[in-house]
């Protein structure tokens, strides 16, 4: 029986963690993700979970504790944002290359400077090459659902990689919205018990982790890690199907919204996708063939599937909530254009950097993007490909 409730995105993730009942949660607080370990610590105090809570002195230590604990054979979690994720940097790579299925809630927040506490994706987009699977969430429901699925994706025998589940700071993390929850027992059986292939605390079979790799071995390990990332695409779909039969909620690598006959389409990530869907509906009412693709899985990047989904589009707008300072656009723009490169016919594509540091994005903003796309379609002139949205000129 689904449970109808209302809560913030942070509360939803903390509740998912409670229902998963991990062995260890190691964290250091940072806005806007602080509530997650804070709420979880209450669960620990109230003995509603069996978890060991490790409070550390920094995010570098938080991820280090996660690595130690997961290596020991404990199902381990953490949460962070912005500068906290940046401070984990070194250890993110260790977690991924040691093939540890740690899960982490990332509540997206801009990186300094100037210092800012509001939402953009510069934190997780900066960590996109660290070897973590990245799953993005439009709202509290998706953050909750994705977190539960993340555990199974990470621990999938073909994967064995850490997963970060992202949602927008404040916009969804602190917004109370309706949500449908699963029963504790359903979550428990969905994630089942963690049985690692090897662990430091297994007295039957010994293991040593994190050895030094000379040049004679390092590349083989990287190639193997890349293979796991590649294989995770089908594992993510497999877990999504299992989750759908449990919850009735359908998930895939990305969501196609009104794309069947779309000629003008935008690609977007996280909370602004909801706002953009409203814009698409408005345009559809005016008879315009507008559509939207919302990226759920950014790492690994589902390039083949995305290219197929966008193959019939006439003009494409790609919205990035972070700068990459490449001077030709944001990270999503780069990925989408790379995905489209092998196609015989590629639609013209323009990039919009939007919503940095929590700058609000409205239906009108998104409609203005579609108006631009329409103009490109009618004039056949792409013009400047790398643009800013909602900026004072």
């Amino acid at each position: 029986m689904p449970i109808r409730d209302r809560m913030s995105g942070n509360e939803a993730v903390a509740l998912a963690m409670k229902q998963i009942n991990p062995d260890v949660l190691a964290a250091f607080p940072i806005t806007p993700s602080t509530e997650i370990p804070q709420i979880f610590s209450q669960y620990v105090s109230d003995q509603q979970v069996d978890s060991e809570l490790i409070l550390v002195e920094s995010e570098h230590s938080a991820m280090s504790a996660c690595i130690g604990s997961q290596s020991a054979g404990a199902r381990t979690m953490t949460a962070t944002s912005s500068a906290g994720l940046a401070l984990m940097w070194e250890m993110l790579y260790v977690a991924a290359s040691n093939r540890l299925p740690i899960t982490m809630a990332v509540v997206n927040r801009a990186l300094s400077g100037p210092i800012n506490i509001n939402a953009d994706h510069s934190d997780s987009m900066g960590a996109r090459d660290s070897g973590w699977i990245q799953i993005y969430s439009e709202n509290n429901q998706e953050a909750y659902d994705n977190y539960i699925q993340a555990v199974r994706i990470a621990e999938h025998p073909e994967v064995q990689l850490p997963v970060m589940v992202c949602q927008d700071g404040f916009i969804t993390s602190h917004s109370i919205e309706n949500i449908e929850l699963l029963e504790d027992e359903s979550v428990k059986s969905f994630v089942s018990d963690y049985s690692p292939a090897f662990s430091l605390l297994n007295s039957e079979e010994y293991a040593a982790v994190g050895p030094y790799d000379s040049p004679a071995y390092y590349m083989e390990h990287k190639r193997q890690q890349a293979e796991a990332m590649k294989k995770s695409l089908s594992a993510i779909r497999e877990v999504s199907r299992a989750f759908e039969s449990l919850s009735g909620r359908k998930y895939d690598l990305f969501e196609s919204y009104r794309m069947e006959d779309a000629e003008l389409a935008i690609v977007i990530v996280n909370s602004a996708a909801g706002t953009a869907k409203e814009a698409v509906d408005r345009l559809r009412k005016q008879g315009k063939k507008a559509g939207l693709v919302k990226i759920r899985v950014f790492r690994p990047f589902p390039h083949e599937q995305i290219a197929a989904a966008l193959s019939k589009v006439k003009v494409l707008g790609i919205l990035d909530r972070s700068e990459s300072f490449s001077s030709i656009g944001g990270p999503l723009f780069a990925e989408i254009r790379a995905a489209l490169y092998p196609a015989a016919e590629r639609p013209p594509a323009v990039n919009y950097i939007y919503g940095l540091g929590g700058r609000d994005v409205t239906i009108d903003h998104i409609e203005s993007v579609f108006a631009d796309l329409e103009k490109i379609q009618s004039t056949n002139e792409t013009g400047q490909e790398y643009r800013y949205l909602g900026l004072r000129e």
Partner: protein
Amino acid sequence: MENMMEVRWHGRGGQGAKTAALLLADAAFNTGKYVQGFPEYGPERMGAPITAYTRISSEPIRIHSNIYEPDYVVVVDETLIDVVEVTKGLKPGGAVLVNTQRSGEAVRKQLKHQDFEIYTIDAQKISLETLGKNFPNTPMLGAVVKVSGIIGDEDFIQSMEESFQHKFASKEDVKEGNMQALKRSLQEVVKYEE
């Protein structure tokens, strides 16, 4: 979207405008609605102007932007009227609710009355008399429920009873005071008629 009611709250840090925005969402949720309640975040300080928002709809809410064209504006602290344009974007036919001891006439003059209704309530007085402290957010919550009619009075009182039971589990007198404040606010909010 057509079925959506949007409320913008103006208060100062520490007055509970955010809490009231979330409680309104809570109360509407309890009557089967889809809701969204969120503050506009920045570095928070006591006394600094803050804005919070509530959306209520009979359909799932997907939009994730702030509210620029509210149906209702709640002014928890009337000193803000000189500081921020509280009625900015207020829909024609919408309403502004002001916590004040002054007359509706005086508020109207200050607001440069346009095509919206004005309601006043002395939330400070209600709060002082029921809670012994100035927490104007609870009476303002009652006032916006009354004015919007989004929830029936009885459903609202029952729903808040449950919320406060949970929120003030160990403080029976605080719960009782808040309930009194709500009930009085339903009665004491006044529409300004020219």
